Every structure is written in structure tokens, then in C-alpha cells.
């Protein structure tokens, strides 16, 4: 019982990182790792009436905007190719998400932004997702004599609200208290002492 409790508490408390493949949600920032370089990944769905920022998964279908902000200035001198490929399954949540699959790369992409340089450090991708589904995103960067590929699976139209940051700690406390209370409630009533039985 205690073990489960620890697991739950730590799972709730850990805000360190989670992600799918190359995209990592680190605290308040959503980062995309491409080789040694890092970009900020932001997703927006303006028509959704929800002007929130998403990290990889898009909660609904419709017009979506993905913005990549290059953190490393060196990326500004390199070409960036962005492509999205249809996939059968959702992200696994394991290390395999980040493994580059050459067969996949050879497919005709669902859509593609050809390789280009972005000297302002911001790449904006607009795409209208007509139906919900699972996808794999690839970011290929190429410099003079280096090339890196990052893979990140994501889903569109599968809302995953997650636990609001403001509620993580309270839920952890609620669970701890409930577990203690269940333990207390299951305790047998105090056995009457001999004095009374005599």
C-alpha cells in the first residue's frame, strides 16, 4: 500500500520532464532537441477559442500553428526541414519515440516544409488538420558538414488535459490524507480493557 502511495506522490510531484521523442516538456518550457541543439516548441490552435500553448499534442482538429524558436544561434545558419508523417499508433512514451526510422523518412510525408534557412530564429508552420489521428514529426537540420534528425510522435484531436499545475500538490496531499484515513477507519475498535470485563 505504502509503495503505491509513494509512486503516486512522486509521479504527481515530478515536474522535471516528460515528453515524446525529441520533444520534452521541461517545467514551463517545451523543448525540441535536434542533435546537440535545442529549439522551443509551441503549438497554437487559434480557432479553438482556446489561445493556449501546447506541447506536441494538439487537443482538437482544425487550423494549427507550430512555432519553433531556435535557442542555439548556430541553428540560424543551418537549413531546417520539417515534415509530418501519418502514423498508426500514438506515442509510446518510451525511448523508442525518439529513434529515427529511415523507412518512415522515405515515405511521402503528410506535409512538408522544404529545407530553408531561418535567419530570424523563428520557424512558423501552419497546417489544417482535417481529421484526428496520430502523426510523427521530423525535424532535419543541415549545416555545412553536419546533419541531425529529430523524431517526435504526436496526436491531433485527442485532448489530454493533464493535471493543472496548481492542483498537482493538493491532489498529492489529498491522496496521502485519504490513505491515512482509510487506514484509521479500518483499525479495529479499541478492545475494552480488563477492568471493564471483570
Amino acid at each position: 500500500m505504502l509503495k503505491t502511495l509513494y509512486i503516486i506522490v512522486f509521479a504527481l510531484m515530478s515536474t522535471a520532464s516528460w515528453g515524446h521523442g525529441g520533444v520534452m516538456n521541461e517545467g514551463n518550457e517545451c523543448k525540441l532537441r535536434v542533435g546537440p541543439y535545442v529549439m522551443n516548441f509551441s503549438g497554437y490552435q487559434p480557432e479553438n477559442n482556446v489561445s493556449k500553448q501546447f506541447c506536441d499534442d494538439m487537443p482538437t482538429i482544425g487550423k494549427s500553428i507550430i512555432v519553433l524558436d531556435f535557442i542555439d544561434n548556430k541553428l540560424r545558419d543551418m537549413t531546417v526541414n520539417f515534415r509530418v508523417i501519418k502514423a498508426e499508433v500514438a506515442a509510446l512514451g518510451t525511448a523508442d519515440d525518439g529513434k529515427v526510422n529511415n523507412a518512415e523518412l522515405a515515405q511521402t510525408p503528410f506535409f512538408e516544409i522544404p529545407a530553408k534557412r531561418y535567419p530570424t530564429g523563428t520557424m512558423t508552420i501552419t497546417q489544417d488538420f482535417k481529421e484526428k489521428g496520430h502523426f510523427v514529426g521530423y525535424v532535419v537540420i543541415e549545416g555545412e558538414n553536419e546533419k541531425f534528425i529529430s523524431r517526435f510522435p504526436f496526436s491531433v484531436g485527442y485532448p489530454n488535459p493533464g493535471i493543472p499545475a496548481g492542483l498537482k500538490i493538493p491532489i498529492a496531499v489529498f491522496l496521502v490524507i485519504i490513505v491515512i484515513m482509510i487506514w484509521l477507519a479500518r483499525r479495529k475498535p479499541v478492545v475494552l480493557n480488563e477492568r471493564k470485563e471483570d
Partner: protein
Amino acid sequence: MSAVHSVSAITTAEQQHRIYKAFDWIIIPIVVLVVIGAFHIHAMLTIGDWDFWIDWKDRRWWVTVTPISLIFFPAALHYLLWENFRLPFGATLACGGLLIGEWANRIANFVGWAYFPLNMVVPGEIIPMALCLDAVLIISRSLTITGVLGGMLWGIIFYPANWALIAPFHVPVEYNGVMMSVADLIGYNYVRTGTPEYIRIIEEGTLRTFGEDVTPVSAFFAGFISVLAYFLWLYIGKWFSKTTWMKRI
């Protein structure tokens, strides 16, 4: 004054039951009224504007002040009702009574006399925290555990329990070129001559260093102080529920 004092008028168990029942019917309404009155005065003096106005219900002060200040009466009543009667509803009685008083005040005074819109002056929701405190008491049957765990829960659950009520009022609005929340706008629109904007004690303090998530920190702090306040007020409850002059019933 001859020998009447030792002969009881009650002769049967049924009679006794009736008398006990009548005693309940006399005492309980009086206690409820006293709790409504006294707790309401206490709440108005200590929380006051934070609970009155929608544009005072912020993430730091309201969250901190309300649970700390409101645990006083539940703690005192817990002592009185638990130690003497093993009745575990002190917190719900206090908070339910307070809400009755607050609603009467808001509807009669704020709306009836001063014509403020009712949505601007809805009291904060305090029943869930009271239910939790009472539940912890009855499960644990210990005022100490209630103080530590229940007090913490009391402080932490306050903001989540109220978010369902106040979230609509935190939607942003553009107004005269300034971004405001709906709550701020209501406070600006509905003129309060004696309550200018700056008088609000909201969102002040150095908790900003915690970044965006100040609410859990405030709630934890409120829970922590609530634990301390609970024990302090247990003692005050003890002091008020002396039965020194009642030798025998």
C-alpha cells in the same frame, strides 16, 4: 422551602426522553443562532472585503487569510461538541451557520440596500473544508490528528473548492485599452465610493519569486497556520466549555 428539592418530576423513561428531546429543541436553535451571529461578526472583522467582493478573491491573500481566520470557530466547537458529546459536526455547523448569515447579509444589505449585483458579492465556498475537518475527526476520533491532518486539508482544499465559482470571473477582457479580468471590471464598473481600487490587498508580496504557481504555496501556508490556529482555538474552546458549575444532570 421544605423537602421538595430532591424529588424529581420525571418518573418514567418516556418522560425523560421527552424532556431530553425538548432540551435539544430549545438549545440547538439557540446555539445555531449564536454561532451564526458570532462567527459572522468574526468573519466580517477578519476577512471582510476579501469575502465581500469578487475582485478581492485573489491567489494569495484571500487564499491565505480565509482558512486561517475561519478555523477559529470550528476548532472551538470541535472541542465543545467532541469532548462533551462526541458529536463530530462542529466545523460544518460553524461554516453552515456562517454561510446562512453571509447570504442574508449579501442579499439584504449589499443587494437590497446598496443595489450591488449579487454575482459581485457571493460569499466564498467553505462547506467542503468543513466537511473534511469533521470527517477527519470522526474517522480518527482524535482532536490531535484532526488538527494536524484536517487542518492541513482545510487550508489546501479552500482554493480548489472555490475555483469552480470564481474561474468565470478570471477570464480576461480588454477594456478602454487595458487588460482586466472580469472580476476587476465588475469592481471598476460598479462604483464603490468607499472602496477605491488601491485599497484592495491582492497579489502583493514577495511570493512572486515562486513564479506562476503561487496558489499552492499560499494554500500550503494557509494549511500550516490553520494547523497551529486549530490547536490554539481548541484551548479557547476548552476554556469556554467548562462545566464547573454543573455537578449533575
